[in-house]
């Protein structure tokens, strides 16, 4: 770094990320990936809009990482095509795709300094030394890590390594930026902070990003769009609030947040759960036997009056809320109640449950 740059950094100059290629959408067209007889991804079609951050969410083995790796070019689909904007990149190797990735293990080169780690791709692109120095300094300031250029990865903390990995991916000005569970090696507190930083940076730079995680809270907090995957297929695509309030399947309802799924019956705006009947409206609601999804925090407990009758089996005081396990004729129901003036209820008490419409959703019974 030459002295002028050092001063600029010290003066807190906002680095210019430099001209970036316009953001492009990623389109996966009927992608199938098999490993031997195991089908990792089956007939998947998905569009990631330009400049957005899309999360692939699902349990381990659902095919989310394989999908990400096919976008990177680290795996090649058995069938189907991968498009970056108008370009069909299916046959291209990872090195020719202008797609970079932040790895779960960070994959920093332990034998190279931070500077050389970040400069690695720039050197392959044969940039001039002065340009490399300037870009590395800029990107390090961008991720909030100036003055570590000379250190080696092993001398950095986990959070710092994570940022160097991000800087190394960003400095290439990729068309698409990929994240493979990048926060899973950080402790809970740091994870929240880095999560916010990643989101802020992605918005500012407007890079099309795909983010893989199995942590639903992370996915909800971070994404424009969440893609829920299960067993190689897409279960649902939608905004975080969409998925939480209107899950398309029992799997999604169960995987995102906590959900009670109760057997019920729906007929002309009236829902019956056990012996309790109440009015409820929902667009395109299924009729007949349904699964009633009720979020624990939207169920109210009463000691008398109308509602689904039940008896409290256990009560867990958890600070901001008290969680109850309530036995009802239609099965166990979890209820999360904020601190009430009457104080927490005790186990063994008889209660009535009512449902606030904001946390209700009717699913076809069979799904």
């Amino acid at each position: 770094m030459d002295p002028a740059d050092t001063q600029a950094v010290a003066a807190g100059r906002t680095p210019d990320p430099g001209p970036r290629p316009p953001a492009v959408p990623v389109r996966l067209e009927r992608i199938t990936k098999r490993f031997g007889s195991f089908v990792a991804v089956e007939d998947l079609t998905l569009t990631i809009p330009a400049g957005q951050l899309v999360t692939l969410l699902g349990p381990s083995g659902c095919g989310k990482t394989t999908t990400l790796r096919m976008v990177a070019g680290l795996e090649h689909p058995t069938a189907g095509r991968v498009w970056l904007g108008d370009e069909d990149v299916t046959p291209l190797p990872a090195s020719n795709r202008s797609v970079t990735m932040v790895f779960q293990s960070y994959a920093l080169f332990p034998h190279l300094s931070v500077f050389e780690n970040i400069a690695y791709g720039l050197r392959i692109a044969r940039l001039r030394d002065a340009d490399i120095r300037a870009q590395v300094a800029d990107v390090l300031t961008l991720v909030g890590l100036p003055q570590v250029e000379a250190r080696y990865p092993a001398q950095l903390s986990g959070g710092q390594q994570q940022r160097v990995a991000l800087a190394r991916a960003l400095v290439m000005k990729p068309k698409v930026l990929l994240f493979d569970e990048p926060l899973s090696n950080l402790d809970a507190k740091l994870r929240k902070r880095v999560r916010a930083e990643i989101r802020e940076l992605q918005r500012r730079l407007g890079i099309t990003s795909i983010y893989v995680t199995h942590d639903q809270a992370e996915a909800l907090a971070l994404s424009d769009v969440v893609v829920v995957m299960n067993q190689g297929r897409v279960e649902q695509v939608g905004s975080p609030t969409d998925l939480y309030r209107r899950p398309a399947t029992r799997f999604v309802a169960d995987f995102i947040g906590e959900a009670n799924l109760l057997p019920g019956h729906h007929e002309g705006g009236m829902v019956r759960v056990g012996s309790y009947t109440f009015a409820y409206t929902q667009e395109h609601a299924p009729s007949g036997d349904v699964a009633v999804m009720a979020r624990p925090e939207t169920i109210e407990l009463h000691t008398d009056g109308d509602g689904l009758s039940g008896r409290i089996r256990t009560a867990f005081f958890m600070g901001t809320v008290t969680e109850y396990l309530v036995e009802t004729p239609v099965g166990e129901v979890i209820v999360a109640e904020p601190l009430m003036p009457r104080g927490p209820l005790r186990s063994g008490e008889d209660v009535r449950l009512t449902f606030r419409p904001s946390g209700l959703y009717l699913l076809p019974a069979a799904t």
Partner: protein
Amino acid sequence: MRPSTSILWIAAFVLLFILYPLWTVLQASVLVKGALTLDAVRSTLKSPAFFLLNNPGTPRNETLVAAAAGITAAAAGGLFRLSRRPVTIGGVVRWTAGVGVLGWVLAVLYLAFGALRNSVLLAIVVGIAATALGFLFALLAERSRLRTKQLLGPFSILPIITPPFVLGLALIYMFGRSGFVTKEIVAFGPLGAAASGFLATGVFFGPLGVAVAQILAYAPIAYLVLQGVVQAMDAAMEEAAETLGASRWHVLRTVIWPLARPGIANAFLLVAIESLADFGNPIIVGGGVPFLATEVFFAIIGRFNPSEAAVYGVVLLIMTLSIFLVQRYWIGRRFYVTITGKPSAARPRPLPPALDYAASAIFLGWVLLILALYGSVFVGSVTRLWGFDYTLTLQHIRALSPTGWQVFWTSTKLSAYAAVPSMLLGFLIAYLVTRVDFPGRNGLEFGSMLSFAVPGTVMGIGYILAFNQGALLLTGTELILILAFVFRNMPVGIRSGVAAIHQIDRSLEEASTMLRANSPTTLRRIVMPLMVPALLSGLVFAFVRAMTAISQVIFLITPAHNLATTQILSYVEYGSLGRGAALASLLTVFMIAVVLALYAINRRLDTRAAARALMP
């Protein structure tokens, strides 16, 4: 037995049977007839058989030529550094001096004469070639897409479980003056005739043959070291490089190679130690050219000069020990550790196809050569007179009776006796150094691993000098052979033991203790059952190593207690190649059978992990 008691016993054993013999060698090199003198050291080191640069028998002055080479190299190095920016005085001086010294050393090694030069040059050449092959094979094992890599398992373990000199013997069979190839290649036109004429000069009967035999025998050692190194590399690192625009070749050069470098240095040094210490190949195919390990033997057996032998031994010991120390304490610390705890799930990236095919072709060539060499020994044991009369006959096998069978039985018996204490002692030491904290723990571990770094010939003269009088009069007995085996192969037990103990989570023992089991009960009910597979392989490999040992025991055998390996050597020396081949075949088949039996019993045995326990 309480830990403190066993520690004292083990420390006493290590002192008596490893350090004390080495001390007597040191003593013998400076004591002549009870008087302290440097005469023996001086006369040996000045002897042309040890080292000679300016040979009066040659027309040129080697000292001058070497100096000229050094100066030329220095100038070239300095000029090269001057051409690279930024030019600094320190840099130019370092390059001039460094390249100059390197050039001079290489020139000296090339021009000089004597055992020191021969051994060092051999170790360097064999080290480089075996390491290069080993690295190539390691890449194949971990990164090849071709099926040929499946042969790596059996063909890497074969040279390790057979005496290394079998390959030397086989070289004579194939490429010697009356070798199979030498004789038969004439049929392939003028080129074949030229090759035959070349081989008939006996090129493989001398340093070249020793080098080839050692490269074939030790490439598996380098392979086993490097296979672990390549396997431990995080594939995500290579993937990261690829997403940053690197081609597979570029990844190989900028990621895999630098990360493998400490491992490569490690493999090179291990092979160099083995090469320096090897006794069998130089004596069988060396053609009388002096090497350090064989000079120790000839000084004592041929020239009856224990002081001279001791000086050679001390020189050899200093060299192998310093390599051992460098390998253990310097290279050992330079390995790049994986940074984050969680290994990535990424699968290994394949090699560039061109490299994959080229390396596989080299490997196949190696396999064919190994097959041909072992095959020639097998066939040689059932042909009348190799090179002249290829009629099949059982005469050599019949001629093994009675001597051959008898020594084979002695070998088996003594190796079996020795295997049990080697393994038990090894496991006990492994347990103590990994799980018990006591003063001098590092010292005990170092002392017990030391015998891997001590050339067998040095330990051999140590034993005859140390145990030939008074209460310790053991020479000429079976006991001294057993003791030699036990303490030489104890590290095999230690390695197997440490590996096994690391697999057993400490909390298992703690759980057992909390359930009110005492220490012996925990050891017996929890630790031992989990370690049985390792114990078994430790036992088998201690046995295999004892059966195939030669360098140390050659000093300790007597006509009454001769061993298979030394008997093969004397058959070869007295020209009974057929009988030598028959006994060598018997030994090889037996070793293969023993190892296969181990696999049959212990199916989960990891070939490579097990083979690593056998290595120096």
